[in-house]
């Protein structure tokens, strides 16, 4: 792994980036992955790039894009007697009724590391119904598919899964931000491979590079994007060859297709994005918590004053939000981007102290 963190390799890449950027106008590169945002900010990569090369963060944090209506649905399942499990920061996300408030009021809401822990919980509580509030992009969806196919009768899934490419399409279709290229998410690509990104490059004439998660992966990705732009090429390149096969993980794709079907779904900060959600197929309705508990997703308007929607749409940086660092901090978050360890606001607050 040394090569991907080696300082002299970084220096070489920075020089190349600097040289090629002199031929180019203002460049705005967007990534759509919370872990990429973490690497970019943690290693101070933005400060290493030339003035005309900007890297912005898009809707890459699954916790952040989950709507209040879906959180309300999870609370409803708990109210109807289920043990509700979910991942990491989801519990603390502010909402009309957050999961942590619901937990404090006595409902049985638990945090798990893996959906496998939820299955074990269902096995050890055979008289209870266990509902896993399943959030996450393509990286996580196959694990939920495995759980749907291999779990006891008292285990259910409340799917809030989303897929990334339709959101990238919407970002460009909106015409609000002028993007020059995409850094594609590494571990989403581990599952889906290169193909699903190709229509986006074709439709919008935009270069893309799939990137890994070490600092030199990001620098290489930026360099390969600038090189495509300079040579007027529009392709999907894969820099993260050690983690992504061109065809993706076929076994995972087959399981996903078996269990899920695409559905239209709203994202926090976005309107309804066609075919961007994954719902359980009818044949698995006995595993579907929406069906079992007769729950529908309510359309709850976004909180006023919080700029998370603009941050998620890559229209502003976290520090451009008037609440950042004073009214809104990780201790007292107003929006999901300040809660999640993958949220752009949390990451900026944690690492970019000098900007506070």
């Amino acid at each position: 792994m040394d090569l991907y963190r080696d300082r002299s390799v970084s220096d070489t890449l920075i020089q190349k980036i600097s040289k090629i950027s002199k031929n180019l106008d203002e460049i705005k590169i967007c990534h759509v992955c919370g872990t990429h945002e973490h690497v970019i900010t943690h290693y101070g990569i933005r400060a290493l790039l030339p003035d005309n090369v900007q890297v912005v963060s898009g809707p890459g944090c699954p916790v952040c894009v989950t709507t209040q209506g879906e959180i309300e649905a999870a609370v409803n399942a708990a109210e109807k007697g289920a043990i509700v499990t979910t991942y990491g920061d989801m519990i603390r996300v502010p909402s009309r009724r957050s999961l942590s408030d619901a937990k404090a009021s006595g409902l049985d809401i638990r945090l798990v590391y893996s959906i496998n822990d939820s299955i074990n919980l269902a096995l050890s509580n055979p008289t209870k119904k266990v509902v896993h509030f399943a959030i996450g992009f393509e990286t996580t969806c196959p694990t939920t598919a495995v759980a749907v196919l291999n779990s006891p009768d008292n285990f259910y899934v409340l799917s809030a899964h989303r897929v990334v490419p339709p959101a990238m399409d919407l970002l460009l279709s909106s015409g609000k931000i002028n993007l020059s290229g995409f850094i594609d998410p590494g571990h989403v690509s581990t599952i889906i491979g290169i193909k699903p990104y190709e229509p986006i490059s074709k439709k919008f004439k935009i270069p893309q590079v799939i990137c890994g998660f070490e600092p030199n992966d990001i620098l290489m990705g930026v360099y390969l994007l600038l090189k495509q732009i300079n040579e007027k090429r529009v392709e999907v390149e894969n820099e993260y060859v050690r983690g992504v096969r061109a065809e993706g993980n076929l076994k995972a794709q087959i399981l996903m297709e078996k269990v899920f079907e695409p559905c239209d779904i709203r994202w926090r900060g976005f309107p309804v994005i066609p075919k961007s959600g994954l719902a359980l197929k009818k044949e698995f309705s006995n595993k579907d918590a929406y069906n079992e508990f007769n729950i529908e997703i309510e359309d709850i308007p976004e909180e006023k004053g919080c700029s998370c929607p603009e941050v998620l749409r890559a229209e502003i940086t976290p520090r451009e939000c008037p609440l950042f660092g004073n009214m809104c901090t990780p201790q007292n978050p107003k929006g999901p981007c300040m809660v999640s360890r993958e949220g752009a606001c949390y990451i900026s607050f944690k690492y970019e102290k000098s900007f506070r």
Partner: protein
Amino acid sequence: MCLAVPGKVEKIKGDVGIVNFNGVKREVRLDLVDVKIGDYVIVHTGFAIEKMDEKDALESLDIWKELLKAEEDY
């Protein structure tokens, strides 16, 4: 959320393996990959999502080095 870390498969029992992450050993589900003992896997929320055998890892290192080297003359 899409954070995933590499580790080495040390034991396999059905669809579950013991994976060693730099000395820390954890149970990992292997439903999404075909692996044998000694393989390296990328693990996300308790599931191996891709196999990285040593040959693959070395080959991809070579590809990356070539990418870097080819760019040197640019």
